[in-house]
């Protein structure tokens, strides 16, 4: 589903990682970890095309991102789900409309039932009509995850989706993602929460990638 070939990225102050090669199979479940500032968010941004690598190539679903036109990139994004670390919303639309946004923006049919079901799963029924700026930190993260999965994406990229959530709610979101994975979605979660990784490993077969010292390593079962 995601193929990185010899990718090097550099924001201008020295390479963040060098000659990274990785391949995530369709239907796989990966965690991405590493110290703060190692480049986890950067890695995800490369995968959905917000950034272009300084060198090397990134392919999603078999198509090289460099060869895509702007419209093809948009179409590709319509088939994947992304949870950003800073959960950006349209602040003037309520939570329900924000969750449905990927469907509205690509002119796909919107099933109100699905949105309500998803909102109740992440515990936001009461906030469906609220505007994003009035949400609590954890509510924003739950709304961001709901928006990412509303399209039943073939690939889900989530950047610290549980950073502001208590343990119970984290578990709940994790089980939602595991459920999606069982239905075929490829999943990549950047997180520093070892408990979350451990819990997931007990429920689904997953691999852990670790960025540190400019390299991407595959952590074994040991962590």
């Amino acid at each position, binding site marked *: 589903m995601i193929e990185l070939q010899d990718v090097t990225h550099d924001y201008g102050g020295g390479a963040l990682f060098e000659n990274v090669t990785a391949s995530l199979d369709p239907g796989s479940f990966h965690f991405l970890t590493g110290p703060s500032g190692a480049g986890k968010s950067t890695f995800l941004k490369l995968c959905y095309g917000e950034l272009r690598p300084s060198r090397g190539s990134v392919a999603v679903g078999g198509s090289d991102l460099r060869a895509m036109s702007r419209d093809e990139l948009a179409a590709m*994004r319509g088939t994947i789900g992304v949870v*950003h670390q800073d959960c*950006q*919303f349209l602040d003037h639309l309520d939570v329900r409309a924000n969750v*449905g946004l990927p469907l*509205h*923006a*690509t*002119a796909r049919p919107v099933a109100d039932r699905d949105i309500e079901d998803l909102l109740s799963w992440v515990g936001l029924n009461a906030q469906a009509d609220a505007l994003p700026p009035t949400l609590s930190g954890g509510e924003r993260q739950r709304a961001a995850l709901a928006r990412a999965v509303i399209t039943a994406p073939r690939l889900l990229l989530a950047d610290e989706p549980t950073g502001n959530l208590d343990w119970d709610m984290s578990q709940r979101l994790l089980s939602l993602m595991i459920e999606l994975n069982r239905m075929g979605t490829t999943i990549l979660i950047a997180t520093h929460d070892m408990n979350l990784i451990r819990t997931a490993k007990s429920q689904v077969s997953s691999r852990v990638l670790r960025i540190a010292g400019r390299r991407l390593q595959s952590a074994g079962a040991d962590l």
Partner: protein
Amino acid sequence: MSAISDRVVPSSGHSGWLVWIGAASMSFLAVFALALAVSAARLADTWSAALAQSATIRISAPPAELEGQTEAVLEVLRTTPGIRDARVMTVEEQGQLLSVWLGPDLPLDALPLPRMIEVWETADGPDRQGLRLRLSAEAPGAIYDDHTQWRRPLISAATRLRGLSVLALLLIGGVTGVIIALAASAAMASNAQVIHVLRLVGARDRFIARAFVRRMTRRAALGAAIGTALGMLAVAGLPAFGPEATSGLGFQGLSWLAPLCVPVLIAGVALLAAAATALKVLRGVT
């Protein structure tokens, strides 16, 4: 669904509001400048008509030839393009003109009064050089006096006024365009986050640009319509300066239709500015 794709651009927000206000105040000014230009043109026409298009022909000749030369002059005038009308003054009219200089108790009969012909030119006027040549051939005693000397500063003043108003109109038009374009681009730039989010959820450039351009144009058109309406009200409410109804500032008759073009033009400018800015901003976002 279409409801939300219309709403993806925030409806309030200060920069959107600036488009509105910019369009309104500039169309207010534009209506005003238009009124000035229209009135200046009318004023210049009136003056030109009143001052420029009349002339006098004086025929000094021995009494025996006077009648013949007068006939000849009238004939020449009839066949000269650029002459609207001509009329021989009566002796009483001449006396009235002279009384300014000579007093009322003028011995008119005792004077060797020349014959005077009043001439009205068309807007373009005749070829004066040619007319003078023909007159001196047909009626050696005739002198064509088109009052050139004293009318010149007034004509040039009227022309200048008309030119100035048109210049002001062009200037205001230009500044309007610049302000609307800037406001549209500021509105666009201040919605950078909206654009970013929309791109991230898979919206194509066309979808985003359409949402922006539609909202921006609507806002500019509404602002311009209100500004124009206020401007027309203000022009209609202006006090008349002169006693004559036709010489006041403002529109008259059909010229009231002219300011109605203002909102259309401004909406057009806003549409172009918004579309150009949208495409420029979008190119910078991945």
